[in-house]
């Protein structure tokens, strides 16, 4: 806005400067024009005055001029010829008139004209136009000039010759042209027109320039406004994105929880399988103890042995509970872990269930490098994949079903592959299985969240990659996790 006001101010200042300077130059020009015209006219007039004075002086040399002319026709002719010598393009007529006191007419003494039809005769009566001017000369005895009837082109100059410093003896009349003045005036007019055109063009250019500048400034302002709007929009968008990200994270957390709860049923079944054998052991021990009591065969040694067996079994049961409880604990931060150990923990939990379903489980754990993971979330992923394999093997009623879990190192990555012989994932759903709420199981057994959460955990929270491909036997779920940086550094140093 400030720039706009400044530009407007500069433009107005410039415009006024041009207008005022033009007015100043125009007034100077007009004055020069007037002066030039006046000076040129004055020059012409001076020339006429000089001629009149020359004629007067010449006439004085003739003595009593009027009497000489009256008495001598030859001298009259010669004198007319003499006057004729003064006639030029700018001096049209030269003649001499006088007026007797008693006469009401002016009379002509001599005429320099060569044209007989236009030449005054000697003593011819003469009726002048603008009589007042002529009488004024007789009265004031001073030369006078005035514009003749031929507008602007001819002026008449009356030069009175005084006799004895008292009366006007005769008047020398010269009609002279003001063509040089007109010529100058015409040229000056052209020059003024040119000057005016130049000023008009400059003013026009300034106005156009001002228009462009105003347009540009207006556009700039509009652009600034738009930019501001865009920035505001970006900010609000950023805010919305942040809000949505936050919501998404919350949703992910909820999904993790949901999927864990879904796993709970599975886990209860696993606990049941885990507990069946130790409970059988406890029951056997209790039964043996009862039989020994009935047959009175119990002694300290046997009691100690039973006690030890019961203690170990109860410890095992307690350990099992601890293992499952740990699974539901939320990981606060990543820890450096041995992937193989985590896999073994999961396998221990699920093994009874798998064994019960007569599914073979093989472990080939060769990744010796530690990775930094959220333990329970990683275990949840492994458990999910194994459970899916187990479900598909049962569903498809595969003969000699098995699950192979491999870990190995590849390009500073720890790779985990879980392979079953369930026939693999159909190609048309290969890209769909990681999407939320996608499931091939019936409503009771599947939520459609397991693999989606697994992918989320591996890729977003553990910065790894989870993918699937089919081999000749079945599906292979492949997890790639970055080996811990420190380990890499240590390896580099070594």
């Amino acid at each position, binding site marked *: 806005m400030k720039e706009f006001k400044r530009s407007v101010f500069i433009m107005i200042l410039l415009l006024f400067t041009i207008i005022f300077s033009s007015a100043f130059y125009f007034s100077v020009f007009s004055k020069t024009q007037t002066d030039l015209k006046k000076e040129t006219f004055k020059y012409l007039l001076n020339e006429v005055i000089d001629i009149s004075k020359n004629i007067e002086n010449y006439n004085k040399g003739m003595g009593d001029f009027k009497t000489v002319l009256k008495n001598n026709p030859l001298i009259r002719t010669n004198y007319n010829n003499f006057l004729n010598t003064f006639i030029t393009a700018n001096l*049209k*007529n030269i*003649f001499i008139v006088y007026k007797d006191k008693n006469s*009401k007419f002016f009379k002509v003494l001599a005429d320099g*004209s060569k044209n007989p039809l*236009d030449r*005054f*005769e000697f003593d*011819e*009566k*003469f*009726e*002048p*136009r603008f009589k007042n001017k002529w009488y004024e000369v007789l009265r004031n005895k001073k030369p006078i000039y005035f514009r*003749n*009837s*031929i*507008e602007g*082109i*001819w002026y008449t100059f009356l030069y009175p010759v005084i006799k004895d410093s008292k009366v006007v003896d005769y008047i020398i009349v010269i*009609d002279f042209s003001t063509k040089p003045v007109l010529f100058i005036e015409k040229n000056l007019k052209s020059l003024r027109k040119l000057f005016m055109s130049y000023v008009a063009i400059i003013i026009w250019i300034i106005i156009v320039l001002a228009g462009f500048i105003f347009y540009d400034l207006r556009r700039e302002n509009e652009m600034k406004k738009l930019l501001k709007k865009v920035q505001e929009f970006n900010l609000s968008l950023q805010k919305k994105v942040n809000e949505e990200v936050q919501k998404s994270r919350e949703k992910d957390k909820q999904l993790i929880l949901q999927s864990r709860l879904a796993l709970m049923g599975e886990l209860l079944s696993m606990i049941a399988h885990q507990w069946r054998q130790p409970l059988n052991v406890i029951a056997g021990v209790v039964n043996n103890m009862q039989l020994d009591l009935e047959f009175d065969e119990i002694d300290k040694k046997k009691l100690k042995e039973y006690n030890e067996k019961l203690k170990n079994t109860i410890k095992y049961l307690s350990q099992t509970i601890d293992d499952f409880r740990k699974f539901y604990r939320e990981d606060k931060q990543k820890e450096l872990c041995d992937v193989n150990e985590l896999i073994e923990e999961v396998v221990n939990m699920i093994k009874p269930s798998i064994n019960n379903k007569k599914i073979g489980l093989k472990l080939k754990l060769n990744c010796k490098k530690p990775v930094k993971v959220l333990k329970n979330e990683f275990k949840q992923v492994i458990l999910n994949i194994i459970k899916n394999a187990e479900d598909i093997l049962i569903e498809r009623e595969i003969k000699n079903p098995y699950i192979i879990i491999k870990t190995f190192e590849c390009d500073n990555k720890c790779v985990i592959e879980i392979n079953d012989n369930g026939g693999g994932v159909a190609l048309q759903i290969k890209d769909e299985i990681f999407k939320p709420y996608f499931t091939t199981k019936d409503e009771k057994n599947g939520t459609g969240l397991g693999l989606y959460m697994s992918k989320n955990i591996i890729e977003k929270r553990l910065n790894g990659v989870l993918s699937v491909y089919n081999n000749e036997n079945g599906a292979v779920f492949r997890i790639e996790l970055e080996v811990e940086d420190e380990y890499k550094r240590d390896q580099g140093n070594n």
Partner: protein
Amino acid sequence: MKKILLLFISLGILLAFSNEERFLFERLFQSLFNKKIIKIYTNKEGAKLIKKSRILKIVFTCDKADLILGIVDINCSKPVFVLNYYIYKNNSNVLGAFYWRKGRPQLRLRKNIIKKYKLNLSKDFEDFLE
């Protein structure tokens, strides 16, 4: 261009003067004859000057005319008004003359001829009487 301009100015002046002459004749002849319509017997030169006049009517026989304008080759006892100084000067029977000298119109009237034809003259023209 300059020449064309001058030609136009000259034509304008001539037209202006021809009107001036016509008005002068109308006023003068109305004053002399004390009539609204004055019948003029004239030559080509005179006809040119008065042909547009509603007061001065051109007639084709001298008998019907009040005045002869210019020189006509006929014996007629009507007053004659000429358009040339030298004709006026050399013919004492001529009533008056109108001619140009150096762009200035000149009018001359003879008192004795006016009296002879028992004509009137308004005071406006008394200055031109000889």
